[in-house]
């Protein structure tokens, strides 16, 4: 289904405080420009990002959700990001049942130094979600 003219995707990014949120700040300090259609929600660890948060975002109208944390092995809390992977898989199982395309939900590891990578991930994800058009759930929400 094609997106209406002038439509912009609504994207929610859940990011851990130590790596990914910091990586977004690094993009800022280096003025690396990227797409503005996402909204960031900070938690301390990606392990905190439970299925309910992501599902609520879709329920309320998100067209895409990005879950992001420290690279494996780099977690500020040792293995929180590995728990994040497991929770991400659970979330994925539900979004499939809901009929959401897999590409609307993404997991990325971005370190505090990777400002350029943060910008790149946002741009790519935005384009991907834009190509998919509005979320089937979002249409109901609106």
């Amino acid at each position: 289904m094609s997106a209406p003219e002038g439509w912009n995707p609504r994207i929610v990014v859940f990011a851990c405080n130590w790596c990914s949120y910091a990586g977004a700040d690094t993009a800022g300090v280096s003025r690396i420009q990227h797409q503005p259609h996402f909204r960031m929600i900070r938690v301390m660890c990606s392990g905190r990002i439970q299925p309910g948060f992501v599902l609520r975002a879709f329920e309320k109208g998100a067209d895409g959700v990005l879950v992001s944390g420290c690279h494996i092995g780099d977690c500020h809390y040792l293995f929180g990001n590995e728990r994040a992977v497991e929770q991400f898989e659970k979330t994925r199982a539900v979004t499939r049942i809901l009929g959401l395309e897999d590409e609307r939900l993404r997991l990325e590891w971005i370190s505090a130094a990777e400002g350029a990578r943060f910008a790149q991930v946002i741009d790519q994800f935005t384009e991907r979600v834009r190509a998919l058009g509005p979320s089937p759930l979002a249409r109901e929400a609106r």
Partner: protein
Amino acid sequence: MDAGRHPLIDVVTNAQVVACSGEPGAFRVRVRKRPRYVREDRCVACGLCVEACPQVGGNEFDMGIKARKAIYRPFPQSVPATYVVDPDACLNFLNFLTPKQRDRLERIRAIKARKDPAYRTDFLVCGHCVSACEVQAIDFDMQPEETDLEVGAILVATGFQEFDARSLRTYGYGRLPNVVTSLELERMLNASGVTQGHVVRPSDLRTPRRILFVQCVGARGEGGRPYCSRFCCMNAVKDSLLIRQHDPAVEEVTILYTDMRAFGKGFDDFVERARSEESAIFLRGRPATIRHDPTDDTLEVFVEDTLAHEPRRIRVDLVVLSVAAAPNEGAVELARMLGIETDAYGFIARRDPAVSAVETCREGIFVAGSAVGPQVIPDSVAQASAAAARAARFLSAERVTLDPEPPPPLDLSGPPRIGVLVCHCGINIAGLLDVSNLVDHAAAQPGVVAAVDDAFACSSTGQETLARLVAEHRLNRVVVAACTPRTHEPIFRETLARLGFNPYLLEMVNIRDQCSWVHAHHPTEAQEKARALLRMGIARAGHLEPLEEGRAPVTRSALVIGGGIAGIQAATDLAEQGFPVTLVERSSELGGRLAAPRLWHLYPTDRPAVEVLARKVERLRASGARILTDTEVTGIVGCVGSFQATLQGAVTEILPVGAIILAFGADLADPAGAYGHGRLSNVITSEDLERAFFEGGPRVEGKPLRSAAFVLCVGSRDPEGFSGCSRYCCPTAVKQALALARQGVDCTVFYRDMRTVSSGAEEMYREARGAGVLFVRVPSGSHAQVLGETRAERVRCRDELLDRVIEVPADLVVLSVGMRARQPETARFHDILKITVGLDGFFLERHPELAPVETAVEGVFLAGTVQGPKDIVDSVAQASAAAAKASVLLAHDQVRLDPAVSVVDPDRCRGCGQCVEICQFHAPALKEIEPGTWVAEVNPSLCKGCGTCASWCPSGAITARHFTNRQVEAMVDALFAEASP
């Protein structure tokens, strides 16, 4: 950043020491501070001056690859975050004029001033930055200042400078276009660096297809520097992995090395990864010459592959020189002023390089990091903490407490009364976003009773505005829309705390770093985003709860487990600072591996180990530490600040302590029959040889030796067993071979990579070669063969470098056995204290660079080889570091507990124990509240506040404070709420 914010640390930058007098405990140090022409007390680091400045200067931090303005911030995370003017580039200093022109200008000014008394001679030629600055921070009248500091101890941490590769003509650095140094490459690879993480050829800024690293540039004999630079091998391997991951256009990375010195914890596994992922081609050899092809600016490198035994010509687009660390130019002068010594190269000299990494030749003056010679980061960090521990002895009388009297808390009860402060940050935010629209939008949100804007919320006037807002509107929630909470939340929290306002009722909205700075091309969407972020922040603020910092009592004493050199050092350091320390040793004597007859002489100083040990023990006894030999620790309960240890043996008691240092050492590998050990009578271990030195030196059948063979990496670098490097064996084998060679014994050393990285070891290796010791490089995957029926007669192996089989007679074969995690102690203390064990079997440190002596269990520290193989000097440094970290904890009679942790609702908990299973910090534990009913309880002393258990709990019984479900969900809901004005 932590140091910059610490209330007890004064950071004086742009300054140098010009004189030093006094004595240990009472030094007087004169410091000259160069003017930065920007006032630190006013600058808010907005960057407006940089935009206004028309003049371009060089850029030291980016290795001159990228230009900067004449007013600049050295790098994005600099502390202080104040800008600085480069007088050599700034137009206002007229340094660009020739002396003659300047003279003329002065004369004209003088004449004008005589004619017109109102004429100002101090006008600025340019001054764009002055007019651009909204907080009047730029001050060209600033003068150099000298201040005298009165200090008890001095720590020298001046680092190194890059070896100047221009001096080696072969490599063409500075002459050929696409030859760069490893530090220049580092700036390219840095995500916030000159090319944002992409590697380019300087000649055309295109991605190089082929890259070649040259190792040991200015090290190991080159450019007059015999020492090994230690960090370059791993750095090149790391860079090759990064490049291949980030730039698929790079087809090939070659590393020209001599020995792959992956000596640190986990380093060998890292190199193996690079090999197996084929991120780099490892080629042993040094380039003979590098030729430039002017048609396409490629470089042709001529090198002999010394393992394949063939000359190679490799055409590449970029050559990276792994340049060695050289002493700082100012080090000798600094040492002269401080009255300490430098070594032959110009590094700061250590008093006893075999034992102490951090003591200089003068009492009260310490050194850490690469100021003494090249160091890797984990060692530098451990040494820094070690130096701090030793320095504390000169300061302990002046221990300071951090707790000022808190103001009476404000009444913040009732429904949310939210105040919103939107920051302009000069034009950083207001240049793109419509701030008044944001203020109106905020004012229209539920619960908001006041919304205002401010030019710079973090400036002193901004903080006053905030205080006034709180008082006038009786706020009980505050939202600041400005920059990132990661840097500025502490500032606003502190301001609020000083008002008696609970700092956890503050919410920051990041509309600068993550909005105006990155969406400059989309002003409409950026405004929309800022409005959404503001709504989300306000919604979360409405659900914030006041949290109170908890306090837990600290038993101000320490337990050191293990009486080897590491335990002795840690106990001495703590006891000398005045803390009660109990050192528990299982055997009947102190000393561990240094005790006779286990270790004969130490490298590189050749001093008897027993003599060193006797001095250390004497100092320990004088320190007042309680020493319990023949005693074991059989159990420990409790947590940070209040552990209870059960001691059994010569002394049996329950000992309360606040901190625990594990220092029970490591085992040596058992050759397990390898190389004929156990079967052939004259195949012994390196430890046996040390023992033989005590009995007048090794003999065969009562006769003196004629020949000896040393086999390295026995039980180390073994893919089947311990895959890491044991670090101490190469220098030990060289030391032993050298000692025998001096007695006329023909010695041969069979090695894989010669890793003589410790201080003075590379020099010792050269000396051994000079003394006739034969070194045979064993091919990867192959082993030396020990020949003989009942006793070893000869040792045979193909020498990878000569490409022929070498067979040498051996009256004695010495197996250099590696280290192993000590068992069953490691497993036992893993059970008792729940300390994580790494894949290599040793205890896992909290973070290899940031926290090398801490564990995931608060209050438990690692000293010496319990954390991984180390030699004596590194063990001692790590032991002092552990003592330093423990003393930070013991300095107060209470520990502060972060209230933003998890809590369990006992009514909802089913006692399933999943939280207990997933928590790495062992914060949750099951408790039987009534017979048969178990519920989890989170110990706030152990919880780090990650919130993972709250997400994981199948019953929803756990709340992650400050990041509760309701707070996060409120943000999601507000995000999608229809926009009001």
